[in-house]
């Protein structure tokens, strides 16, 4: 009951960011698909030859390559916005006292925040990605359907957004100085992104995102439990 009350509050606070990211993704994504369809006419065979065997590479070489960048930008943008909203704004507004003095464990408060962010990421980026992928794959848009690997590649990009969310949250929670370890969370997320871009395979990608997320989540949880408010 208490968890769901907190989750509802967190979801409401994530909603404007979630809606903005989803609207941008849907609008530019749809325009991009229409544009890609027109460009594809007469260019379909050349496009086919540029396909690679590696999952993510399909995305980057397909006519909807701009679209993958858009998904990436939306996921990272939303991740950063949610991290700031959930872990910085209460500091600025001085509302931590009201939030933390709840008759519940701090872990419950933290879990509600993380769950709300996860739901927001899945709805705004993940589900929209599924929809746009289905749209791109329908014969109305492309002659050659996208392979399944590139679908999973889109979810990996979504996972990168999650890493940036956790990184931004950790920066917000950290009470160290800007020029010391405060930026470590975002630095770590960025490092994970660079590691991921070095060798883009599905297993490597998922492994990197998973390890990064677990490390950041643990650091955040530890910081939240022991933080002074």
């Amino acid at each position, binding site marked *: 009951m*208490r968890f769901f009350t907190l989750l509802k*509050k967190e979801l409401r*606070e994530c909603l404007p960011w979630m809606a903005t990211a989803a609207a941008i993704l849907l609008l530019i994504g749809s325009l991009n698909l229409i544009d890609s369809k027109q460009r594809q006419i007469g260019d379909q065979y050349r496009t086919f030859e540029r396909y690679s065997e590696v999952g993510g590479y399909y995305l980057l070489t397909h006519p909807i390559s701009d679209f993958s960048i858009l998904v990436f930008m939306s996921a990272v943008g939303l991740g950063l916005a949610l991290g700031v909203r959930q872990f910085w704004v209460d500091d600025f507004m*001085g509302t931590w006292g*009201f939030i933390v003095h709840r*008759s*519940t464990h701090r872990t419950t408060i933290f879990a509600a925040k993380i769950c709300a962010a996860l739901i927001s990421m899945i709805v705004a980026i993940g589900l929209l990605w599924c929809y746009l992928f289905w749209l791109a794959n329908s014969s109305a848009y492309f002659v050659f359907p996208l392979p399944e690997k590139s679908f999973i590649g889109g979810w990996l990009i979504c996972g990168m957004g999650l890493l940036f969310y956790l990184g931004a949250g950790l920066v917000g929670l950290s009470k160290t100085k800007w020029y010391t370890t405060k930026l470590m969370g975002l630095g770590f997320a960025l490092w994970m992104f660079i590691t991921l871009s070095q060798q883009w395979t599905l297993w490597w990608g998922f492994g990197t995102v998973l390890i990064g997320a677990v490390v950041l989540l643990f650091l955040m949880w530890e910081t939240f439990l022991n933080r002074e*408010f």
Partner: protein
Amino acid sequence: MTEFVLETQGLTKFYGDKLAVDHIDLKIPRGCICGFVGRNGSGKTTAIKLLLGFLKPTAGSSRLLGCDSQDLTPAIRQRIGYVAEGHRLIRWMTIAEIAKFQSAFFHEQPASAKQGDAGWDSKFFWDMIDYFGLSKKQKIKHLSNGQRAQVSLALTLAPNPELLIMDDPTLGLDAAIRRQFLEGIIELIMRQGRTILFSSHILGDIERVADKIVVIDKGVIRADCSLEQFRTEVKKVRFVFNQSPPQTIDIEGLLGSRRSDKELEVILVGTADEKIAEWAKSSGAADYQTINMNLEDQFIEYTAPAGRNKPFTWEAK
């Protein structure tokens, strides 16, 4: 045996190398209304945050309702009401939404509950909101400071807390709203066994509701006594001399002095009237009188910096 609802032992807090709270030893018994007073930056908010477990002490410990402040369980937090400085609430919520949010952390009082029973008292909350002339559809972000304070008080009192901790709740409120706010507190006091720790630097408010006063200055507890005792023991005495007042003032309980050509004003703590008369005689004073002070004057004199013995003067160019 007295039951202490709030206890601290050597509670100390440093921010880096700055000492904010210095070895505070406090004991507040059940049913006590304690005014926690100090100037701006004296350590009131830090002490309250330490008590509620929001900050970690550098040394010492504190207990609320028998539970260590650093390990307050949800069940204990439920019994403690907290009004934060500035009444910071969730801005996007309406009054109805914030009431629903707050009530989710308490069990709803059954219809058969008596006044003073634990649990969320919905009727009490809405009666208070009506009394303040607010509507449930108003958003927190559209409320004035005073209205936010009223909502904050209603939210805190509705679950009928055993211990109420308020951090400068009347700061920035006008006289009328401050009065309504204090009436809300008095309403809680009427319920037996409720304990209140009430920080403020508006001494009139403290005087109206408190029965104990704790004075904190630069992180150190300077007074911890009943309000009545404080009112009786902090005195200002003016001695009149026929010549210049003596340079050395060897009177018991001397806190500060201010001198002019033929007059000497002293602030004394706990000095018996006989001792004052004795010193007046021995120092050659022609006359002396005890000057009446209100609590605010007493507090200002009591916490005045040591070197401040002259009033501020300004000469026009």
